[in-house]
């Protein structure tokens, strides 16, 4: 994504968040969640700010950010295609869906396309096992899929 | 929350609003609401029944509607099913009659004979 997301406005929001968690016990995780939400990622610049304001070593913050899959160092693409790879979806053929999505978009699992349009993710159970196999594109949920459904879905976002 | 009594009072209030979703016991009032019934004025009757039941806090009474009961000329009509009793059919109803049925039959247990299908026919 070429858009600048490290804006002053976002940093001002981050400062507010850190300030409001001052009296909380164990505030790091909630602050990181907010930071991920504000910036769409937690790159080094953001980690440095958190480190300085909270007086926690940068290394420690980097360690936490990279441990959890919900926190990312780079922002995701405009459309995040998540294919559920929970057990129920897997036994109903989710792997073939992944292969087809990768083939069609040319983007690998866990990667973002160069133009910042698509990110592909294999997620663990989203809990819609009744609809297995399932994939989501941002907020849209597509269930009871077969490989032949994939081109139609991708088409919708290509426009 | 200060006491169990306060909580219980709150529960007794709240239960009236969700009672409908429990397993059915108690009284069922069925209103004939096919085209003929609606044309004859079944809707105000239904509203009156609901209003009266609510005012009196009759939690164990279900009011539901059905299609054509078959005697269109006597509409609006309702059927009352009380546990362990025979079905009672009331005909040619109005709002006032409906309220009387709730008061006399449902609450006090005495059938309003003059409105029943037997009396009118």
């Amino acid at each position, binding site marked *: 994504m070429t858009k600048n997301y490290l804006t002053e406005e976002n940093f001002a929001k981050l400062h507010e968040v850190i300030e409001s968690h001052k009296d909380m016990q164990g505030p790091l*995780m909630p602050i990181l969640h907010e930071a991920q939400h504000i910036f769409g990622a937690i790159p080094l610049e953001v980690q440095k700010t958190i480190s300085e304001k909270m007086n926690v070593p940068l290394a420690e913050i980097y360690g936490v950010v990279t*441990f959890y899959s919900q926190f990312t160092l780079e922002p995701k693409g405009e459309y995040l295609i998540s294919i559920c790879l929970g057990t129920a979806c897997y036994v109903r053929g989710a792997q073939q869906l992944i292969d087809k999505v990768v083939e069609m978009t040319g983007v690998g699992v866990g990667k973002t396309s160069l133009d910042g349009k698509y990110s592909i993710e294999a997620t663990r159970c989203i809990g819609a096992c*009744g609809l297995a196999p399932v994939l989501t594109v941002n907020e849209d*949920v597509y269930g009871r899929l077969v490989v032949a459904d994939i081109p139609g879905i991708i088409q919708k976002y290509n426009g | 929350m200060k006491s169990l009594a306060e909580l219980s009072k709150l529960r007794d209030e709240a239960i009236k609003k969700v009672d409908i979703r429990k397993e059915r016991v108690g009284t069922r009032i069925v209103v004939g609401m096919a085209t003929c019934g609606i044309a004859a004025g079944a809707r105000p009757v239904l509203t009156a029944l609901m209003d009266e039941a609510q005012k009196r806090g009759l939690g164990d009474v279900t009011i539901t*509607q*059905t299609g054509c009961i078959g005697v269109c000329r006597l509409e609006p009509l309702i059927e009352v099913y009380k546990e362990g009793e025979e079905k009672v059919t009331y005909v040619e109803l109005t709002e006032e009659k409906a309220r009387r049925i709730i008061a006399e039959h449902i609450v006090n247990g005495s059938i309003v004979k003059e409105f029943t299908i037997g009396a009118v026919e």
Partner: protein
Amino acid sequence: MDFYRAHVLVCGGTGCVSSGSLTIEEMFNQALKERSLDKEVKVVRTGCFGLCEAGPICIVYPEGSFYSRVEQKDVERIVDEHLLKGRIVKDLLFVDKAADVTEIETSINNVTFYKKQKRVVLQNCGVINPEVIEEYIAFDGYQALGKALTQMKPEDVINEIKRSGLRGRGGGGFPTGLKWEFTRKSKGDIKYVACNADEGDPGAFMDRSVLEGDPHAVIEAMALAAYAIGAEKGYVYIRAEYPIAVKRLGIAIAQAKEMGLLGERIFDTDFNFDMEIRLGAGAFVCGEETALIASIEGERGMPRPKPPFPAEKGIFGKPTVINNVETYASVPQIILKGADWFTSFGTEKSPGTKVFALGGKINNTGLVEIPMGTSLREVIYDIGGGIPNDRQFKAVQTGGPSGGCLTVDHLDTPIDFDTLTALGSMMGSGGMIVVDDTNCMVDFARFFLDFTVDESCGKCVPCREGTKRMLEILERITSGTGTMADLDQLEELAYTIKDSSLCGLGQTAPNPVLSTLKYFKDEYLAHVVDKKCPAGMCQDLLSIVILDEGCIGCTACKRVCPVDAISGEVKQQHVIDQAICIKCGACIPKCPKKVIVKQ
């Protein structure tokens, strides 16, 4: 008017929301308004009904009519026919495949899926609106807390839980009452209660459904636990991947605070209790209690050796009780109805009920709650409605990536904590994934190992390195380059990792491999010796062939082949050149005689 003659319950659980139930709810409200029925008929958004396969689900009371897979075009019909004229729309009702009925059952109470269940933990799910505290109170909510605070001593609460025999539903099966007693006796001025809602088993969603459908039950139970052990503060650690559950729990906590059921001097006693939600961030290992504690404290979610147990040193170094969602959800009813009521269900060693998330190759995917000791057969065939497409039942995996599989020989085993462990599986949190004869068990084991390798936190060597090596071996086997020595090494690695890993994740990670090796050794051998995948799933071991008999030489397959691997003259037998074939399978559906097969 507060009194409505009919209620339309629309499922707002994640499963149904994903299939569009919120739009359906909106359309009901709209349609009712247009017909001026909105003062008579109320639309209620509830938690999960359990039968996710049939979603979006709507139930119309007082009849209890169970409408399944409701589409937008069906809404007007239900309103016009059922709600206006009182005629149940029979063709939209759920069809009960398990029951031998000629006529469709019109009431939800008669559907086999529900009839065989005993709903204790899920009693309010799909019945109440989880965002309205009064509805919880109407179904005896917070009565247990009131009773405990005003009539029972903390020791009495602990004793009642001990007497009920309640065991931890998160997987371990440790007696809850004992855990509470240890924590009460631990020295410390400050103590905490915590709820483990980091449901990570892929394919399990019972905790999410409880939080979405009945969040107050968990709040009430945590308050009871806090009273019992002497804590004033609680944390709920919940997966960030469950936005609906997070939101509803947040609403529930706010409502409880407003009503004075959380806060200071609850029920005018000296008891104070407040609670906070902490979000997980996508790490399976955080379901392990010491890792969960580290995560709440703001560190990498890595486990540490036990002892000391959380009961002595938990969150911020203080004594802490940690129970999972389902365990908590059983607590208020035990206090209210008594331990004897609870032990009237289930088996002697595992009293009560258990919720399972039934998924995979099964007709009725969904949440089921059964008394402990129910047989697998009843769950899969009666409640689950059997296997779709007339396929053969092959196995069921319980306990997710930490558990093992049970086979056709175990169908009559009564399910409880101890029987499952004895068979080399485990209860786990309650995921139950059914596979049929088209699923390869070696690949299934590989899938779980892939998961554990991904989720291993990396702290201890056996788990970090060992599971990776196991995965490599399984990948060799499924791609056709495995050897007999690989099988021996796989087993040896499995036992070493089990014995030497630091936490539950590593100690149980080899289970899927060990149990498939035990019950499906022939499939492993087929992959290694014959280089075949009997289920026809492992792509590298498959070849697509045209059978010798039946080919009419129509050339349909030849024309569709992208790499020109098929040869043969018109009206002559066709052949696939295996050296060229890329196994795309495009020819299979084209064959009018269905003689092209994977084998």
